């Protein structure tokens, strides 16, 4: 006593790479258009 240390087998590391493939859809086109997109110079000032 104490018992001698023993080597234990460890599983190798595995990454959850599939998680990176889970992405939000692009919803830009569903959003309120910003001023710049809507008009030109005048609407940027007065809009």
């Amino acid at each position, binding site marked *: 006593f104490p018992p001698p240390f023993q080597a234990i087998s460890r599983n190798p590391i595995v990454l959850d790479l*599939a998680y990176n*493939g889970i992405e939000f859809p692009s919803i830009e086109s569903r959003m309120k258009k910003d001023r710049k997109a809507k008009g030109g110079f005048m609407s940027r000032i007065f809009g």
Partner: protein
Amino acid sequence: SSQQPPPPPPLEDLFTTLNRHIQSSAFDNAVKLTDQILAIAPEDEDALRCKVVALIKNDRVEDALSAIRSSPRTLDDFHFLKAYCLYRQNKLDEALESLQRQERNDETMLLESQILYRLGKMDACLDIYQKLQKSKIDSLEINVIAAHVMGGRSSAVQGLLDSL
């Protein structure tokens, strides 16, 4: 009746707010926004997909599965998302089954390889890595090495490391 309920906020406003929550990783709030959108437009594809993804990103895998199952529409990638949730719950056979209903691409193959790894099917797992090799996926070599080691092919690992 003649009494009109107040009009709901325009969808584009809700999507604008939803986008802000997504950008700041406020996934609980994002889910609330998708629920508001779906209350107005129950079959809105973008809202359905955002809801499921936000739940997954928030580690609410069980809720994500419920959302998929109760969805009035089956979206293109729902089988993949469902398979991922089942994988996270370690329901590996169900996960594979769901994945087989999805068209194969890099993402589905990555998930398939991870499921096969957990099932101990290293040969099938390594077959997929072979196919993914040309896609240049970041950190894939870590999983490839693990599959070699667990598949009793540690001797191949040195060669693999040398080729990186």
